């Protein structure tokens, strides 16, 4: 299978006045299309930082990163944005649904940033609501949903634009185990249908849904 992600000697530091703190050290990592990778490690190890770099939310790093055949370094912000739009979907620990949009509107949000006609968008939203079995909730606002339901919408929103790569930072961190397991089943199903997934988790059970674990410690990949 083709490499979807290739990191070579990626380094990240924060400069604060004269002090610079290294957060990621010489990260080299390859992820093939169709993999389901879990990143684990103690708090402060740099997991979220790495995920932000992978998700093209953070372009200030050293080393080289090739995503889906495109080298990130030197890429103009606009093109980088285009690449991210084409390739990546995000799931957050705090769900990050927009409070004043309904479930359906939240789902439509990523589509509104892509060139897609209105009725096409509506169709895709309807399909997705169907597929995730949340049609009945489509006109509710996020605060009217339980945590698990909100994350379900979060995942649906992350995959609605059919990204190749799904990035999830502790997607079950705010859920109790039963709800968490549901989300993990969903991830497994998405992965089976071809979506590459990289998730961060502290839980061994969740890690078991994936096919590979990468351990981070103090910014280094621990073997």
């Amino acid at each position, binding site marked *: 299978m083709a490499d979807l992600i290739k990191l070579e000697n990626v380094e990240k530091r924060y400069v604060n006045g004269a002090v610079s703190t290294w957060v990621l050290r010489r990260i080299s990592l390859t992820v093939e299309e169709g993999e389901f990778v879990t990143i684990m490690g103690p708090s402060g190890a740099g997991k979220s930082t790495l995920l932000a770099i992978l998700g093209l*939310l953070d372009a200030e790093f050293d080393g080289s990163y090739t995503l889906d055949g495109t080298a990130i370094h030197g890429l103009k912000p606009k093109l980088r944005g285009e690449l991210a739009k084409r390739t990546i979907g995000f799931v*957050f620990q705090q769900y990050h649904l927009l409070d004043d949009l309904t479930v359906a509107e939240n789902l439509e949000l990523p589509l509104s940033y892509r060139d897609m006609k209105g009725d096409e968008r509506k169709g895709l939203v309807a399909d997705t609501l169907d597929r995730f079995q949340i049609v009945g909730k489509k006109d509710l606002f996020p605060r009217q949903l339980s945590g698990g339901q909100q994350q379900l919408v979060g995942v649906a929103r992350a995959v609605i634009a059919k990204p190749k790569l799904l990035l999830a930072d502790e997607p079950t961190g705010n859920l109790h185990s039963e709800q968490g397991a549901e989300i993990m089943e969903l991830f497994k199903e998405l992965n089976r249908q071809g979506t590459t997934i990289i998730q961060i988790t502290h839980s061994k059970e969740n890690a078991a849904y994936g096919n590979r674990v990468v351990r981070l410690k103090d910014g280094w990949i621990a073997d």
Partner: protein
Amino acid sequence: MSELRQALRRLGRSPGFALLAVAMLGLGVGTNTAVFSLVNTLLLRGLPVPAPGDLLSLFQSNPKRGVERDVTSVPNFRDWRDQSTCFTHVSAVDPGQATLATPEGPEVLAITGVSASFFDLLGVPPVAGRGFRKGEDEEGAPLTAILSHRFWQSRFGGRPMLGSPITLDGRPFTVIGIAKEGLEVPVATDVYVPAIYPADSQRGALFLPVIARLAKGKTLADARTQLAAIMERIPSEKERGWTASAVPLAEDAVSDQRMSLLLLQGAVLLVLLIVAANLAALLLARAARKTRDGAVRAALGASRMDLAAPLLAEGVVLALGGWLFGLLLGRAFLAVLLVASPAALPAWARPVLDGRVLLVSLGAALGTALLASLVAIGQKVRSVPIEALREGSRATPSRGSRRAQAVFVVLELTLSVALLGLAGLTLRTLSNLATQNLGFESRTLLVANLLLPGAEFETPGARRSAVQALTERLSGLPGVTSVSGTTTLPLGGNYNDTVFGLEDRPDAPATEPNVTGVDQVLPGYFETMGMALREGRDLSPRSAPDPRASEVVVNQAFERRYFPGASALGKRVFFGPRADPRRAATIVGVVSDVKRESLRRSERPQLYFSYLDITPRRMTFVLRTALTPGELSSQVRAAIREVAPAAAITSVTPMDSVLGDNLTLPRFLAGLLTFFAVTALVLAALGLFGVLSTVVAQRTNEIGVRLALGAKPGDVFRLVTGQGLGLAAAGLALGVGLSLGLGRLLGGLLYGVSATDPTNLASVAAVLFTVASLACILPARRAASLDPVAALREE
């Protein structure tokens, strides 16, 4: 379009924010619309005639004698008219008063004597009838008159008047036309009549204002060169030292208002800037609450444009709302302005909200709203999404956005301080003008203006005895302590100058006369006015048997200027046009100076002759009263009608209201600037209140921790107030600097106060800190009364 619809929907969901923003924008746009419509009418559109820029006011000057600008004589006017090639037309515009005979008795009108070409010169023919024809302004022509539209409506109810006879000053005129409505150029007029002057009019008798229209292709410079050349060629000895020139009439017509208007326009632009800053702070606070939303959107693929577009759309919607509200407010402001001080504008200037005003106000609204939106957009697009995502669901605005809000509040405070400073200076100017020593006592003075028209008052003897009989009758009125009279009341809006010579003065020979103010007064005038007789005596109560025996009283300024260090008593003055040595008067007294031409202008040399020697057809009686002067006016009218039914009463009014007319413009300026400064201060106070409220809301947790760790409510109160007053202090420091800079531009508008006046600055500081403290109290109280347990639980 759908962006705008969505923006409208979003704003509808936070109506409080939307209304506040529209109200602020409306206030800024409204004040700007009102002031700009004045600027547009007076300075941009100009006189209501075709090609107003081609109209010139011609004048003569004598730099050597310090006469910068004077009207001209009839012979000079004829030379300019006949010898120039730069003008299509040259016309006299001789303003004056005349009495109209009516069944109810004589009525005083404002008339303007104009040349036959006047209406062609303006380029605005009468709307009914015709203009004057060539020859109708020459001696012997049948007398014709053209009514102003306003006068035609108010006096004759707009009924057909063409061909009708009217009697002006006892002479029959035929109405031949009605001037166009609103054409009160250059001054308000009831009736236009041909300006007819005798063939042997004197050079040197300077009384005639002249206007002209530039011919195609000619410039102001051409006109000036040519006028100067014409003056050079005049052989008369009397024109030595005199030259002629021209200025645009439009400039001339608004010279009093120009500076004030520009200052007001500047002031309302500052108000608009404050609105922009306030709106920016408001938008920042709103955007700050949505930082996470922006980050989520960015993570879901929103480009910068995607993020900016909703904010821009909201800006446009707010701008349109603010514009519409501003137009309404602007119209209301304008109406109030015109009602409050109608005399502040020339009669021809009737401000309307025309296309240009609408466009400019739309531009102001859009500019302000978009400027503010761009600030919020800049903040939003710059914020790093991952940070906001990592911080979790708690929406903590970045420190940068909080700092930006503080900067805007300081900017607002700075601008309000500057405006307060300017307003303070104009208020002090107004009070200095109003309370200064005028040289006479106005409070218990009643003045009655009369004209003595027609055949009944044809001879000096008839006028003299009428005036004497009137004086006697008025003195007998209960409550009147003394009565006298003058032909030119100080600050009454008109005054005469005369040329004169001094006997035995080589530096002022009779052929190079000096110019001085001149007035004809009745005996007892100085005492009635409350002026002090410094030397000598009053004019004698009898008329002089022959002109060479006449008497004159001079003021102290005259004595200082022409007899420095010596007494003027007993010296002889030659007077009249060209200081005729055959007409002389002996100085019998010296009186204190009074303000004569304007409240600002310092006292000039002045001659007082006896009305009994020279008897013009106009007379202003001054009555010193023991009662409130206004209470007497109807009795005074009745007494005049009884004694001299043929006399025309122009007005009977307390002297204080004459002074009030002199204060119209300064009061207009001070009133408006104060209003704008207060508006600015209220906006800035709202801004300060907003920032402090945000800070308190954002620091609820921190304040809870402080309270839990033992801080007393008083400490928390001081923490918040300290922050607010710190911002106020920064605004004050910057604002004082700005105010000093702007104050210099005021220069000529100030009177008796300098831009650096410490009292003014101290008052500004006091006002600012009072208002700032008020703005601090609520947020500080809220912070101090937080329940630490609840505050800590709050996420």
